[in-house]
């Protein structure tokens, strides 16, 4: 628990899991959850570097901003998902490919 690397490994695992979800899940909301995992991984890094870099509070501020951004992103993304659902009656991201044509 006093090792920077431990936190970074945990963060790396979370990040990869998040990326996997983003790449493979069909459901838009599941993709969103993957994004949340990625953001959390980044946040852990911020706070960990802040803790092991001489307790520099700038990292905390950054993670705060990230949390706020995540909140905004979740709100907008869910609004979009619900909109897609209303229009296409599905939330599978594969089907929302109208831009292809």
């Amino acid at each position, binding site marked *: 628990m006093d090792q920077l690397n431990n936190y970074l490994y945990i963060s790396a695992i979370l990040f990869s899991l998040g990326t996997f979800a983003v790449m493979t899940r069909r459901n838009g909301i599941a993709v969103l959850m993957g994004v949340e995992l990625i953001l959390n991984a980044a946040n852990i890094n911020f706070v960990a570097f802040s*803790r092991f870099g001489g307790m520099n509070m700038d990292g905390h501020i950054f993670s705060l901003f990230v949390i706020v951004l*995540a*909140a*905004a992103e979740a709100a907008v993304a*869910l609004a979009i998902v619900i909109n897609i659902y209303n229009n296409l009656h599905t939330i599978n991201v594969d089907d929302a490919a109208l831009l292809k044509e």
Partner: protein
Amino acid sequence: MPVAEIVFWLVAAFTIISASFVVLNNQLLYSAIALLFSLFGVAGLYIFLWADFIAGIQLIVYIGGINVLIIFGIMLTNKISSVRLSQTNVQQGVGAVIALWLMILISLVISKTPWLQIESSEPSETVSVIGTLLLSKYLLPFEAISLLLLGALIGAALLSREAT
């Protein structure tokens, strides 16, 4: 091993296992609830990192706000009794390989980099420092993000309202 160490590893394992559940579970609602536990675990990690305020914010915003929002989204869009479809797409295999590779590479980078580390003692409180920083050094980003939140609020409202 001291108790704190054991607890730390337990929290870490809890976080990662929950996160895997999020990613691998087929039932979307279960995923969301697993995400909740995972976020809880991350908050625990923050406490190990002396970031009590961030941990609190994590609990309030992520678990109290975002996760509830996600569950709402699931409820609004998925009929729970609907036919269970495959929750993953065709890229599953390739994606898994790539994600694994990504993890291995990042871990390699982490282990190979000589991180700069400065010893420090646990601060008595973080909230006042964060508050001062927010209103002095980071005043502009603070204001900008408040505008962004406002924009997101309006945007979300605009997007999700009934088309008239």
